[in-house]
């Protein structure tokens, strides 16, 4: 039978995974920013549709990562509120 301490520890174990996921998202966003700058410099002046598509996809990726991070923050808040009530 699980104790309150065990339930809290299990939620903590999950939140540790979330924290590591958040760190990976932050790292991804930093690398993505560098890639966007590097591509912008290399492809400056291009009117190619493919270049436009690449830039749009990178912006979409960054937006999705930002929203991902926001959702994890809400999840952490909700889980911590729950364990605080136990």
């Amino acid at each position: 039978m699980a104790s309150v301490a065990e339930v809290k520890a299990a939620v903590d174990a999950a939140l540790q995974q979330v924290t590591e996921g958040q760190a990976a998202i932050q790292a991804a966003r930093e690398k993505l920013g560098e890639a966007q700058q590097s591509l912008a410099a290399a492809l400056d002046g291009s009117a190619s549709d493919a270049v436009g598509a690449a830039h749009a996809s990178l912006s979409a990726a960054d937006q999705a990562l930002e929203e991902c991070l926001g959702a994890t923050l809400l999840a952490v808040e909700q889980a911590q509120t729950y364990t605080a009530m136990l």
Partner: protein
Amino acid sequence: MSQIQELGAQLRAASADLPTGPVTVALERLRSATEILIWVRETSVDPIGVPQLGNATEHAERAAAALRLAQDAIATYLASIGLSGDAAAPPDRDWRAGLERREQPPPESAGQPPPEQLGPWWRRRVAELTEEPPPDAEDADRAGTDTADLLRRVASGVRSGDRARLGRDLHSVQASTGLALSAVTPPVLRRLAGDLLGHEPGPDDVARLRSAAEGRVRSLLPGTSPAVLETLIARICRVPATDAGRPPTHPADNAVTAGVLTGVLLARLGRDVSTLDPDAPDPVRRAEAAEPR
């Protein structure tokens, strides 16, 4: 090098450096966290953050897809300027991204750390799965073992067919370290399965992977339910989940079975555990499917 070759080199480098690895790591961490929370909240009406984590996972999946689209667009551009020979998508280097060795944070305070609350829960379940009793207390909680180290140890134990050693290695880590096997193994399993099959695993490969792994997994984990292995193989083969209505699986079962399955696939491929190191040369996939040995 001509100017156009130099531009091509820059673009290939930028494409290869896109953060597909960290996004893969984030995705698996979020899935693992969700799995644990679903199990915790089985009978609770409180969502405990599960829907939000589902949203976060969807956003991360969208980010991963957008990065692949960007790589395709760069490849299309390279082809359009006459560098078609160089326009192939960069090789998949992300499958071991979750196994990077991390710097150990310095201890926050001197002395013994407080006992882990989930330790007994984890060891109880490991004992049920492996039918190996926990070791003496002084052998437990091996400090400094991270999940990548644990996966290598588990894979070594599987390779040698030593269930007692497997049990010792699993018992000796903290629960959070063991549970994180669920997060680091999915891309590794998919890659190893693909290497064994000679192609990307699909729904038609379920029976073949099952026959390659089932016996050995059962002999090393006599306490695991066959449904756990089935679920893992279905995920590897991208088969839609059909477990709606079933109670959530114990998180330790998924984590431990995924670790053992990694070792079984490595053994089937005749590969050493060192091939899991992110710095090791990327193994060459055989063109023809291998017969399970």
